[in-house]
């Protein structure tokens, strides 16, 4: 094991200086795209951004941005890129801020470019709707990524998030349809996710199956079972098995009436509020409680944890099941939280994006949440640009989260390191 780590270190070493130049180059490239594409190919006129929903009690005036703002933002991005190339030590916080700013500028330029064009017919871009869609779309991603964090912090790789979401969606739809109570659907979906977590734990811990293989196989199996039962039971008897009602939105009194913030954060289904609670609980739990310290000890050095009397396997089982319960809620959102009906393979890779978000967020709940929101925003933006028929392919935007993850694991945004014992079965010596 010692040799393997030195080997990896030697391979990574020469990339250290290259990485700085590559990162700077990427930032400058974003600035150039801002100026050359969104600037030179833009249409005359100004873009407008609406900041409140139609019919809101308190309205915020619409912001107007003239086309030349694109050049200013592009120049700022290039300046940030040049600063990044300087051989000075930047703290990770500053580096992340640089990337965040450049990405934000890029998105603003993209929106200005699309709104000054003739595609929107002068209708302002509604920022509130866009962010609402972002948050709603991020719910399964965040809950899935939290499930990933729970498992991997305890040393078990969970690739079966995709399967947990899918089975959660399936069970939620079936239970809510047959019983007729959406809350039971939520519980059913959650339990289904937990069940997948339990199976994963049993095979990984008891039978030492390679966890990556296991996750992929479980996803395949769940895709097969749900697809089979959908065709055989749900579709022919859709009235009984696939006609769940959905949760209605729940506006939080007071907070929900704040302009801009209210409709985005406090006027949604119960799923969003569960997600808030889950993020806080997992973050505090993992990093500020005795339980979290034990979990992280099990994930980093199980032998040492065992020596001081921590039940290594027990913690792994419990974390995988708890994480599965969360991911199952995320799956339930897909059916009873939004569309109501189940369809084949409806998780469509969200579980893998959640996995990516967890890695992007460096195995921390808050980081994973931020990454999931970023991916959710890319999806929402893609859908929005699709509706106004901008002449750029939505496929390009849909690729963005995946490409960003490759860039992240390739170390261009700093080293990404998994818990040391992640993926290794524990056998007491």
């Amino acid at each position: 094991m010692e040799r393997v780590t030195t080997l990896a270190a030697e391979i990574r070493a020469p990339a250290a200086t290259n990485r700085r130049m590559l990162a700077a180059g990427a930032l400058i490239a974003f600035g150039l795209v801002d100026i050359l594409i969104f600037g030179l190919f833009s249409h005359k006129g100004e873009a407008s951004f609406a900041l409140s929903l139609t019919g809101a009690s308190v309205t915020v005036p619409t912001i107007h941005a003239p086309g030349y703002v694109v050049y200013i933002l592009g120049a700022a991005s290039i300046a940030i890129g040049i600063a990044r190339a300087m051989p000075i030590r930047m703290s990770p916080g500053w580096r992340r801020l640089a990337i965040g700013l450049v990405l934000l500028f890029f998105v603003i330029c993209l929106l200005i470019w699309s709104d000054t064009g003739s595609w929107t017919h002068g209708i302002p871009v509604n920022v509130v709707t866009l962010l609402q869609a972002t948050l709603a779309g991020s719910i399964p991603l965040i809950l899935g990524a939290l499930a990933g964090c729970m498992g991997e912090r305890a040393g078990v790789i969970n690739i079966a998030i995709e399967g947990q979401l899918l089975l959660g969606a399936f069970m939620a739809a079936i239970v809510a349809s047959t019983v007729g109570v959406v809350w039971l659907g939520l519980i059913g979906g959650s339990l289904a996710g937990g069940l997948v977590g339990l199976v994963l734990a049993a095979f990984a811990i008891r039978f030492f199956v390679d966890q990556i293989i296991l996750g992929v196989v479980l996803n395949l199996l769940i895709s097969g079972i749900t697809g089979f039962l959908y065709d055989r039971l749900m579709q022919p008897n859709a009235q009984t098995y696939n006609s769940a009602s959905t949760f209605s939105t729940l506006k939080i009194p007071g907070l929900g009436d704040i302009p801009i913030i209210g409709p985005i954060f406090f006027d949604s289904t119960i799923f969003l509020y569960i997600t808030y609670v889950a993020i806080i609980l997992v973050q505090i739990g993992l990093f500020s409680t005795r339980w979290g310290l034990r979990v992280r000890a099990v994930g980093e050095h199980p032998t040492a944890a065992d020596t001081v009397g921590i039940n290594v396997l027990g913690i792994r089982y419990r974390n995988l099941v708890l994480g599965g319960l969360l991911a199952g809620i995320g799956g339930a959102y897909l059916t009873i939280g939004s569309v109501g009906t189940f369809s084949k393979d409806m998780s469509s890779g969200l579980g893998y994006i959640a996995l990516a978000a967890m890695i992007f967020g460096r195995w921390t709940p808050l980081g994973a949440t931020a990454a999931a929101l970023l991916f959710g925003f890319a999806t929402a933006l893609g859908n929005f640009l699709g509706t106004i028929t901008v002449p750029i392919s939505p496929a390009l935007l849909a690729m963005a989260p995946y490409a960003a993850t490759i860039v992240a694991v390739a170390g261009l945004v700093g080293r990404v390191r998994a818990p040391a014992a992640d993926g290794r079965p524990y056998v007491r010596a």
Partner: protein
Amino acid sequence: MTSDPGNQPAGSEQGPIDTVTRSATATSGPPLRDRFRGSGRAVISAITQGSPTVVTILAIFSALVLGALVIAFSDTTVLHAWNSFFAAPGAAISATWDSVAAAYSALFEGAIFNPHTISAAFHGGSVGAIFYPLSQTSAQATPLILTGLAVALAFRAGLFNIGAASQWIGGAIVATYLGFAVSLPLVIHAIVCLIGGFAGGAVIGWLVGALKARTGAHEVIVTIMLNYIMYQVLNLVLGTPTALQLRGQANLISPNIDPNAQLPHVGGPPPQVGVGFLVALAAAAATWWLLERSTVGFEFRTVGANPSAARTAGMSVPRTWVLAMLLAGGLAGLSGAVAIQGTFYSLNFQSFGNYGFSGITVALLGRARPLGVVLAALLFGALQAGSTVMEAATSVPVDITEVLEGLIVLFVAAPPLIRAVYRLRRTEGAGLGGAAKGWNG
């Protein structure tokens, strides 16, 4: 990650009885009867201790049993019969049996052979019709052999290639484009498309290997992400008339490839074997030679078994990773080319299928050996060929094959579970992949 018994600790697969037998036969010529008894005991010990073959067979059997339960208890008539179980227990059991028997016999008739075609042949029917199911099976198995090899080859070098789907798309895009945009003579055109498909997949595979070698990016994460990126690339090129989209079409579909680029079928009257199947078998043979008989293959296996030892022995680990992923990607790309040139003739999201992920199960069931991959691909090909017939005859959805594939591989991956269920003697031992590795390893 490799499951080569040569890399496992000595005696891990042979039980004590086996060792005794061997030493007995080694001492100058024991009586013939004893030798027979010895080999008989070896067979028995293989069964009772669960050799890989026995575990695989039991895994398939267990999956079929569980699959039967899924089929029966999702059948509404069976469920109704069970509701009145205490009134008529016989009816419930016979309804269950009927449901399962109808499904599995239709599956068998669609995959292996249909007894009716034999009696029909005696009464003036076509003899070729007897072999029709088998030719369907071979056609279904063809892309699976190649994606299975793509996963298996990388496995042996210690890499888990989840990206066969992306490499498949890369190969299919290049092969399709060369198929309709270029005009070449008969045989040459098909070969150029096959080579193009290999290259298209190899580029994607190379990218994965190069990223791992240069930056340490884990190949599992990169391949998962590339799967989705290539899916969107396919979306993009099929939606762009200047790239692959059929002119004047709003649908995402490419033009048909030139007849010269299509892979013909060989061997007698209608039920024939596609040339693609032969290409896949040749690729399997080449992979076997590469892995077992060449220096490069030895390096692959050494790096897969122990990268540190390989490095100490003077092998370049990063170079091996790049080369292994390049070849693996090429094999998956070849699968895309063969599927387009031999079966679909045009690229769209229907032909995209599920070959990449099935390739993983094929490689796992075949224990990452070329021969095993071919056999596993034939089994899954048979399941897929049979399931379409089964769906037509009994309306059991084709998705049951995915359930069976998943269950089989799950059980194969966990020999201790199979040993425990069937009371086989040994209760320990590594399953697939040997020692599990994490993101850091």
